[in-house]
């Protein structure tokens, strides 16, 4: 090996010891530029002398330069690895964060419990083939009452304390319609009077008017009553209505659908109770209740009388029944060919149970402290 080649080896040795002593990445980068930099590095400078060497020495010199470069680069790589590893170790050994400090918070949006409950209801009924449809809140007397077998003066109107709307003197017409009374009731126009629907049942008629069987719909929506508000009553509230019409539907299907609904919403352990009730637009009519999921139907909890069901052990969920043949005929269905069932329940009732909300008025008060808690 020539003297020059030996110089290269010495340089590599020197570089190796400098690299091994490099304190940080910056020092290492400076050494990289100094020894193996492409333009001004020692190896490059050495190779630039190559043409001035006797031809016989060139291969040996070239080989020595390459060997030196490899030694330096591998030293650089080694030291680089060491420095990175020790940096990571220092970081790992560094001060721990106080994880008990409050985080950088994100804003969390929430659904209103009513819209959440309506979604849950429509989701469950969709699973049983019921399509969600909606209809007008401001409604004709015809759809809200007459078409549901509740003519003016019918005692069932007492249950539906109605808010009337001023349009075109609809109240006057309402009174006039009542005033004709008795057997002499004039055929009232569908166009008058106007009211705020007292239930979602008018949609039974609207849907049947628009569709031919088979029909399966669920109708969530806002309803209104002339009613003093308290912890369980609101003048503005939400209901869900169901309607199914087909050739072979019976009370057993109605019971099955509501049974399934109750268990999907409150758990598979729920028992369902079915008892006769009265609605002018269904016959036979029924009320469905399920056993209280808080006290398991016993009516009592450790704290005494169960507050959720009022001690009865049952929670009334919906009114229901087979659609009255007169209502079917009115929309042009043939009751000897098709029959069906309808049901209707309160959304707030379910929302109160699902969220543990004690007072129905909280839903419309929109106190964010409440809304953020449910």
């Amino acid at each position, binding site marked *: 090996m020539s003297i020059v080649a030996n110089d290269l080896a010495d340089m590599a040795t020197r570089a190796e010891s400098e690299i091994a002593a490099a304190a940080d990445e910056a020092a290492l980068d400076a050494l990289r530029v100094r020894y193996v930099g492409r333009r001004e590095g020692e190896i490059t400078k050495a190779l630039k002398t190559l043409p001035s060497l006797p031809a016989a020495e060139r291969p040996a010199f070239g080989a020595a330069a390459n060997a030196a470069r490899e030694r330096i680069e591998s030293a650089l790589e080694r030291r680089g690895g060491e420095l990175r590893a020790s940096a990571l170790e220092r970081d790992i050994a560094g001060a721990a964060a106080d994880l008990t400090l409050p985080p950088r918070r994100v804003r969390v949006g929430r659904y209103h419990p009513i819209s959440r409950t309506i979604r849950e209801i429509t989701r469950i009924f969709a699973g049983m083939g019921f399509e969600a449809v909606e209809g007008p809140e*401001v409604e004709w007397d015809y759809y809200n009452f007459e078409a549901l077998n509740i003519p003016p003066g019918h*005692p069932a109107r007492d249950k539906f304390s109605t808010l009337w709307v001023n*349009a075109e003197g609809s109240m006057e017409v309402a009174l006039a319609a009542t005033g004709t009374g*008795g057997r002499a009731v004039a055929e009232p126009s569908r166009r008058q009077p106007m009211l705020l629907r007292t239930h979602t049942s008018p949609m039974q008629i609207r849907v049947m008017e628009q569709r031919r069987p088979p029909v399966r719909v669920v109708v969530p929506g806002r309803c209104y009553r002339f009613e003093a508000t308290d912890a369980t009553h609101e003048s503005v509230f939400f209901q869900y209505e169901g309607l199914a019409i087909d050739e072979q539907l019976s009370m057993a299907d109605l019971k099955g659908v509501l049974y399934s609904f109750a268990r999907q919403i409150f758990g598979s352990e729920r028992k369902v109770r079915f*008892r006769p009730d*009265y609605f002018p637009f269904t*016959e036979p009519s029924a009320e469905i209740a399920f056993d209280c999921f808080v006290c398991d139907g016993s009516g009592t909890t450790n704290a005494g009388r169960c507050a959720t069901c009022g001690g009865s052990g049952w929670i009334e969920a919906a009114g229901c029944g087979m659609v009255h043949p007169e209502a079917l005929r009115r929309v042009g269905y043939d009751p000897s060919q098709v029959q069906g069932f309808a049901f209707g329940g309160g959304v707030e009732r379910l929302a109160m149970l699902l969220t543990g909300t004690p007072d129905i008025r909280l839903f*419309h008060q929109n*106190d*964010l402290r409440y809304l953020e808690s449910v």
Partner: protein
Amino acid sequence: MPSLKVPVSWLRDYVDVSVSSDEIAERLHMAGMEVDHVERTWDWDKIWVARITALERHPNADKLLLATVDYGDGRTRQVVTGAPNLAVGAIVPYAEVGAAYKDAHNDGTMAVLEPKKMRGIMSEGMVMSALELGIGPDHEGILLLDPQAPVGARLRDVLGETVIQFEIAPNRPDALSLTGIAREAAAILGTPYRAPAMEPLPHRLDPSLLVVRIEDDDACPRFTAAYLTGVRMGTSPAWMQQRLIAAGMRPISNVVDITNYVMLEIGQPLHAYDAERLRGRALVARLARAGEAVRTLDGVDRILRASDLVIADEERVLGLAGIMGGEDSEIREGTTEVALEAASFEPRRTRRTTDAHGLGGSGGSAAARRFALDLSPELPPLGLARAVHLLRELAGATVVGAVDVYPRPRQVPNVKLRFSDIGRVLGAEVGRDEAVDALRRLGFAYAELGDQLVVTPPAIRTDIGIPEDIVEEVARIVGYDTIPTRLPTGVLPLHERHPLERMRERVRDALVGFGLQETISYALIDEAWLRRLTPDGSPLAPEPLRVTNPTSAQQEIVRPTLRASLLDTASRNMKHRKGLAIFEIDPVYLPRPGDLPEERWTVGVVLCGLAEPVREGETWLTPERVFEVSDLQGVIDGLHRATRSGRGTPEVGAPGLHPGRSWRLVDGARDAVVAGQLDPRVAEMWELPPATFVAEVDLALLLASVRPNAALTPPRYPAAWRDLAFVVDDATAWRDVETDIRAAGAKGGLEDVALRDLYRGAQVPAGKKSFAVRLTFRSPAGTLSDADVDRAVAKIEARLLHRFGATIRAS
């Protein structure tokens, strides 16, 4: 629903109740007679039967008395009372200190009796009213007990009773009586029903004693009456008084009590007239004539309407038919001749007259509540015969004649059905024997003709007319719980799609995702709110729909805008917090002539006060920052991006909003979006901070502006970036600059422009501002060279110079 209190001991007169009171209540409930609750009056502890032994004035109060009560075994106490109906010797309930009672001065909530000094004198216990005992509404006086009741006995041993309170469906007036419930109980238990004793009535009535006439047989289909002589007015026996009290009525006199007793027992209201006061010896059912008036039993002089049905004699109106009698013909002490009326009245007319004279509701006429229902015309003769029987037994009366005017007897329907209809409707197999047994128990007559069944309901049932009614009757007795459960089979209806509702739910999801809280407010609002939406009170929305009979002025308007509700929600919440971000999705109601209003679904948003930190006061990482208009722009932009919607160019300014910090996006003739900072003067009216931002988005227009989904394949070639800063006039709008940059760079592969900085200050001349942008270039065909990008940037710079006189600061 009409309610009925049924004392179980009374019920046992008509049916053997072999099960407990709780069980019969439960079984009646499950068969359709809704039980509201079961009351027990036997829980009275520390309440005794006592005699008043002395009564003297309270020395310090005119209206108070000091009563000495003896409650047996020589125990006496002095109590202070204000009751007007006490006399020495009266037998009354006496409650010791420690007894539980209903506090009449506190809405009847339960209280425990404590010794109390009243006007300086200690009252050791209390004599009780029916209300305080919880057995009736009466609190005008102390409950006077049977004079024979044993002094010193526990009250529960004398008055103890279980009372089932029913809510009877309005189609079942036949069940709104003790015998009605008894018939149901008998059918359920399968035991016989025992009708109460009836007096056989004569079929003749001497017209010189009484003539009965119906002038309008639509309004009064049937009128029966009896003429009784030798009536001895007095008090009714204790057992009758106790039953009336237990059923919620107040004993008055023997004749009145008997009519009330029979009303409760049979379900037929009756009215007793002092026959000697009937002029012309007549009872006439007719419509009132113009100008007629009557003073009713409640002492009110009533001007009658021509549509009011009245009972009159030959000269004057005696009372409102089926609602309330008149003062003048009322039976009174000394009455000996009684004309007793039991009639049928048309329910709708009765209802209207009741309402018109303010006699409806639970405080009104009990008879009117019954006549508002479709009571069977078969009931009057039953009620009459029963009442005559009781009047003979309890008032010494002799019936000398009776009359039944019933010009057009009502036909009882025959309902035809097939046995298979029962299974078809119920989805349950009910055997023939089981079905006819149920009908038999309910008192229905039936004939079987092969598969056909012809059913005739009992005449007093007015709710049966179609096969489904019969199916329900069978099901009630067989038990609804025996109906199986199954899920519907058959063809699933084809679902239509509801794009607007799907859009609404996407928007709801997006806004919740942005961190906004959803609210739902009353759709009925205060009219005053609508005048607080603009600084000068001018309306924002068209003339709204109004509720004719609102529950309160706060809920009179069917809202034509969400803004007022949103501001109210914000305002109430800002009283206890420093910032909020809320939204509501609901319809607004816009009147249309001759039609229902349009219900226009609207998305409303409010950002108000502090935007950050999210948790109030927690500034250790995030300094306080109030919402700015750009936050609201971000929400609307986010909504458009989340739903891939939005079209058109906004106009600056909108009513009720800050003229320079608001915008509206008009689509056709409608506002698709109205948004911006609330006019600070409006904010002040709602006690909201100036940093209040509202937006209203028309959901249907949002849906209409949805763009088709265009899936993007990630680009194959790398992008190149250049930063550029330039100075323009301060008035230059960013949107114009951006539009021109995009136009100029389009051919050169400009993919995106991002605003990095907006600077006004020392580094730029007055009246100028500097935009710094990052430009992203990319070609779909290959990697762009530096030279390509430089050329594109030069073109953009040239355009900025040309259009805006821009000076390039750095590139």
